[in-house]
């Protein structure tokens, strides 16, 4: 007999589900559902009180309708009612409904929390588990606030049942992930670690997950878990396949627990204690040995469970990266999997090997599998596996095998899936550059790349090839010859025209001696592509033509004819027209000397991080690529300088020096460069080629919020983006203060011209003195610089100073502005006083201008302790037993400025029902009351 018929069936529900399944069309289904919704609504609204069973049935129907994908906007109340039923099934359905249809309706949350509270206190383990499951499923902040403090107690209580402990552990984990600040650490943490020794394997399994998450933030608190985890793991690994009874899964002892323990160990460095480490290494070896044993079962579940542990073991070995012997063994094991008949294992082996390739101990071992990986690239039928193979080839590439790998990737590119082409192009471009011994090979590779997958070659890639050719004079002649030949093809990609146009414009003279590539032939070849190209490419070609005028005076008349033609001079595109007019004029007015100066050869690009690498990092997320690159850099000496990318709009033009000669040209516009930026005149060239952005960036988004957070605290992170982190530490005494600003470079590249500036508005300047010294203009990758600001408050003030930071990162100019949290309340000194004194002074300040009051809605949950902390953080003293109503908060302090001292009294009255506050401030100065009131109101 099937277990379902144990007597909980709801006939009405079954009929309804059958009806829905029998609906022939979507319309019929919607009609049936609407009918049912109307029915349920009337039942819920009806005068007759529903019994528990009906309520359960209807709630369950609603749930079913919701899960079909329809919206449900009622029934929550009935579900909440079910929570307090003493019948288990009704309670259970109620909880299920709540878990699936969470609603942040505050009224309801309170009721739900009440029901949960009752069940948690019920000491009935089944009810407790239901309640814990519900908290874990919803995991909202409100629930965290209500229960985060109780659950640790349940977790470590001696009398909690095992099943309750399990649920409590995972419930706490969920709350911690959602809002870590709500879970208080305490003496329970030590006891949680000891759950690793628990008799019950299920409790250990749940506890490991919790510890793995908690120990990330507080590694020291949980340090002891390492030795406990090792001994637990060792017991499991060495147990016979039947020792663990029901925790053995297809002859594999406790696979889930093993994987979790191995993962926990990856949160820590290798154990320092030799005995523990020895035991652990023994475990890892045992796992590797077991992989070689014949399988105990032919079932895929057996091999999956066994290999899950094996892969996690290998992850741990890679994480430690200190046992060459184990690393090589791991690599050999993965090598076997590369040819396994299970696609899943091949996929995982390729993936794991990628990380192994970056370890110096196993890099060579990984390389031995190159043929297999190349074969995978050609034969795998699943694109995700092929993608892994590409990744691995990229990771295992070094100088010895680069030509082979690049060739294979290029040939794969011809048939590769469109989704991964761009990434392969980037990888080929990087490898070709990085491991090029012979730059002719590099040029060939990139041109091939453009030929095969021109559409996927991004700007960065072709900029890069030009930078390299310009920086290395040994390859320039070859490059000119090769692009000339490549351009002969009847159909060639526009990217090739760009590269060809640029290179011939710079180095066409190197091949002009050959009658087959005489200047005129070069020009006609390029010009034959002109009409097929987009505007930016045409613009580039026009620049090439003017360079030709300089390089080859004999083609000048031909080129002038072209420039003079209506299609150029009257081109609808303003950029093309401008170039044609300017270049034509330049070619007629300027003497050869001036032409030669203006159109001088491009100077070498300064060395920078490869822009393509930056792009790949951006594409793949910084973690993966950086690791690979950093380790590789140690092994290989960089041969080529990494020039910086030319600015897009001007990439086509030689850098003209803004010389007097040029200005002397008279009426002719002076800039052969791209679209002129907003400023004009002789400053134009300077503007294009430098970052003279003296403009202050608008405030960074989110800076308001960060600013508000610092009103009640002095230390923390003020600003953070992908490049830069700004941390603050400050201290204030009376009217003086000192602020330490920490600028951290989060990238691996230098910041140049790093200039932080403090800006006080005209209103602020007389009231606040800020003094600081400039910082070093270069910030190394990963480094941090510190700046000290001395602060003096002269008089009360409202605005905050602005911190503007400008620097160069890679090729780009960065400009960030944030408000510096120096606020009036920082100059508070708390004053303790008795109730009597307080009210006496309160009355003295009864002048209407002296009082400011604000009534506002609570933006954060209303918590007494938090409020107290904030008032103290704000700087005033918190006076206990002053206000007759104990729920109210009263504070007093003195604002110190250089010129005067301002006494200040405050009173905050929370109204829990309305979720409102009333804040009243009385000071001897109206502006001060006003400003303090604004600042403090924003905190609650």
């Amino acid at each position, binding site marked *: 007999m099937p277990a379902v018929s144990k007597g909980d069936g709801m006939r009405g529900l079954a009929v309804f589900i059958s009806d829905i399944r029998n609906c022939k069309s979507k319309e019929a289904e919607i009609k049936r559902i609407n009918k049912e919704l109307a029915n349920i609504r009337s039942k819920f609204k009806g005068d007759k009180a529903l019994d528990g069973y009906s309520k359960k049935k209807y709630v369950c129907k609603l749930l079913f309708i919701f899960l079909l994908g329809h919206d449900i906007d009622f029934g929550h109340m009935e579900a909440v009612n079910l929570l307090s039923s003493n019948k288990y099934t009704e309670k259970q359905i109620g909880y299920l409904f709540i878990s699936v249809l969470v609603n942040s309706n505050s009224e309801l949350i309170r009721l739900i929390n009440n029901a949960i509270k009752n069940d948690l206190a019920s000491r009935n383990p089944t009810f407790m588990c239901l309640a814990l499951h519900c908290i874990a499923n919803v995991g909202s902040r409100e629930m965290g606030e209500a229960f985060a403090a109780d659950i640790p107690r349940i977790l470590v209580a001696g009398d909690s049942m095992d099943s309750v402990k399990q649920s409590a552990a995972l419930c706490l984990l969920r709350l911690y992930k959602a809002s870590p600040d709500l879970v208080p650490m305490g003496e329970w943490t030590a006891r949680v670690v000891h759950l690793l020794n628990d008799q019950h394997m299920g409790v250990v399994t749940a506890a490991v997950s919790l510890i793995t998450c908690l120990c990330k933030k507080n590694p020291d608190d949980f340090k002891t878990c390492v030795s406990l985890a090792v001994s637990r793991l060792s017991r499991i690994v060495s147990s016979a396949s039947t020792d663990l009874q029901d925790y053995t899964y297809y002859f594999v002892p406790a696979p889930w627990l093993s994987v979790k323990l191995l993962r926990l160990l990856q949160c820590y460095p290798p154990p320092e204690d030799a005995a523990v480490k020895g035991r652990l290494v023994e475990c890892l070896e045992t796992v590797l040995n077991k992989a070689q044993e014949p399988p105990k079962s032919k079932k895929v579940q057996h091999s999956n469970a066994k290999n899950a542990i094996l892969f996690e073991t290998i992850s741990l070995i890679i*994480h430690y990266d200190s046992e060459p012997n184990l690393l090589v063994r791991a690599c050999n094991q993965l090598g076997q999997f590369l040819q396994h008949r299970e696609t899943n294992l091949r996929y995982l082996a390729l993936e794991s090997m990628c990380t192994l390739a970056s370890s110096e101990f196993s890099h060579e071992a990984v390389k031995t599998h190159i043929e297999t990986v190349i074969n995978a690239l050609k034969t795998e039928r*699943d694109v995700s596996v092929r*993608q892994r193979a590409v990744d691995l080839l990229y990771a295992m590439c070094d100088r010895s095998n680069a030509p082979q790998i690049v060739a294979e990737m290029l040939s794969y590119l011809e048939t590769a899936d469109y989704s991964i082409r761009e990434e392969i192009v980037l990888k080929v471009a990087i490898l070709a550059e990085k491991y090029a011994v012979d730059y002719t090979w590099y040029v060939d590779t990139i041109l091939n790349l453009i030929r095969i997958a021109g559409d996927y070659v991004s700007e960065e890639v072709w900029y890069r090839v030009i930078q390299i050719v310009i920086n290395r004079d040994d390859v320039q002649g070859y490059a000119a010859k090769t692009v000339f030949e490549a351009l002969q093809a009847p159909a060639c990609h526009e990217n090739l025209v760009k590269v060809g146009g640029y290179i011939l414009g710079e180095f066409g003279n190197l091949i002009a001696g050959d009658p087959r590539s005489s200047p005129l032939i070069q020009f006609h070849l390029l010009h034959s592509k002109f009409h097929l190209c987009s505007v930016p490419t045409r613009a580039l070609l026009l620049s090439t033509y003017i360079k030709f005028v300089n390089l080859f005076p004999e083609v000048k008349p031909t080129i002038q004819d072209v420039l003079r033609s209506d299609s150029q001079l009257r081109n609808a595109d303003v950029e093309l027209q401008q170039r044609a007019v300017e270049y034509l004029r330049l070619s007629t007015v300027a003497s050869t000397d001036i032409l030669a100066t203006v159109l001088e050869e491009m100077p070498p690009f300064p060395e920078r991080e490869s822009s393509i690498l930056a792009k790949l990092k951006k594409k793949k997320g910084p973690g993966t690529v950086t690791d690979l690159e950093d380790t590789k850099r140690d092994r290989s000496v960089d041969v080529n300088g990494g020039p910086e990318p030319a600015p897009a709009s001007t990439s086509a033009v030689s850098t003209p020096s803004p010389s007097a000669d040029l200005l002397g040209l008279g009426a002719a516009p002076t800039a052969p460069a791209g679209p002129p930026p907003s400023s004009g005149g002789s400053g134009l060239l300077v503007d294009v080629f430098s970052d003279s952005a003296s403009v202050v960036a608008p405030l960074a988004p989110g800076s308001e919020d960060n600013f508000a957070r610092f009103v009640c605290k002095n230390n923390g992170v003020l600003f953070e983006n992908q490049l830069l982190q700004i941390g603050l530490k400050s201290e204030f005494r009376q009217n003086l203060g000192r602020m330490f600003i920490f600028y951290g470079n989060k990238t691996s590249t230098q910041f140049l011209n790093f200039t932080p500036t403090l800006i006080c508005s005209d209103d602020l300047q007389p009231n606040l003195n800020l003094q600081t010294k400039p910082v070093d203009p270069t910030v190394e990758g990963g480094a941090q610089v510190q700046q000290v600001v001395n602060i003096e408050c002269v008089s009360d003030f409202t605005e905050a100073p602005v911190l503007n930071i400008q620097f160069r990162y890679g090729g780009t100019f960065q400009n960030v502005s944030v408000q510096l949290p120096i606020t009036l309340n920082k100059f508070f000194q708390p004053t303790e006083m008795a109730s009597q004194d307080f009210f006496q002074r309160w009355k003295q300040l009864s002048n209407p201008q002296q009082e400011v009051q604000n009534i506002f809605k609570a933006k954060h949950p209303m918590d007494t302790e938090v409020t107290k902390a904030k008032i103290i953080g704000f700087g005033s003293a918190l006076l206990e037993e002053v206000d007759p109503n104990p729920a109210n908060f009263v504070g007093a302090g003195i604002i110190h400025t250089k010129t005067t001292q301002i006494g200040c009294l405050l009173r905050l009255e929370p109204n829990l029902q309305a979720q409102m506050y009333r804040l009243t401030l009385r000071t001897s100065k109206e502006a001060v009351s006003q400003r303090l009131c604004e600042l403090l109101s924003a905190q609650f």
Partner: protein
Amino acid sequence: MPAGFPPHSTTASLPQHGDRGFPFAAAAAAAAGQAPPRPRPAAAMQFMLLFSRQGKLRLQKWYVPLSDKEKKKITRELVQTVLARKPKMCSFLEWRDLKIVYKRYASLYFCCAIEDQDNELITLEIIHRYVELLDKYFGSVCELDIIFNFEKAYFILDEFLLGGEVQETSKKNVLKAIEQADLLQEVSDPPTSASQSAGITGVSHRIQPIFMSLIGESKCREKSIG
């Protein structure tokens, strides 16, 4: 800090730090050349979906807070992606920044989303263990059992997985918990089962047990097919 300073902020979430090493010691360590232990995020399952070959969603369990709209979008996208895959392809795929682990049992696809660092194979076995639990509870489970007793499918899942983490891996313990709960139920309710209720409306569904020959050890399956 000199005496007499206002005792500023005591909020618990404040980053505590000394004068040195703040604010990112890890980056500094990286620059200094010591490989910092690569942080492995506490990975967990993000969500689990069960859908039929026709793309009908049969069960959804979300372990991360998402809006209904996002859930629907994800479901639609994933169902399409997974259904388009061929049988011999690998059971893992990268999707957005997550990994999808899926497996097909008869007419049903079981599909889990895990984080990048998670163990794919063990997730595959999580799916299998869940199928085993359903099978044991319903007695050769078929898609109809999950449709008609969806609430049970959720209860069993909650006993097995909580907050995206494995709670109890012992089949015996999970089923014991569910059966104990069943014993608490009222006897007065009229009993039904999937096959019966299908009979009520006189519609015959082709009921294909999810398992068929996928796990061989049990004999009860043959009984149900026969």
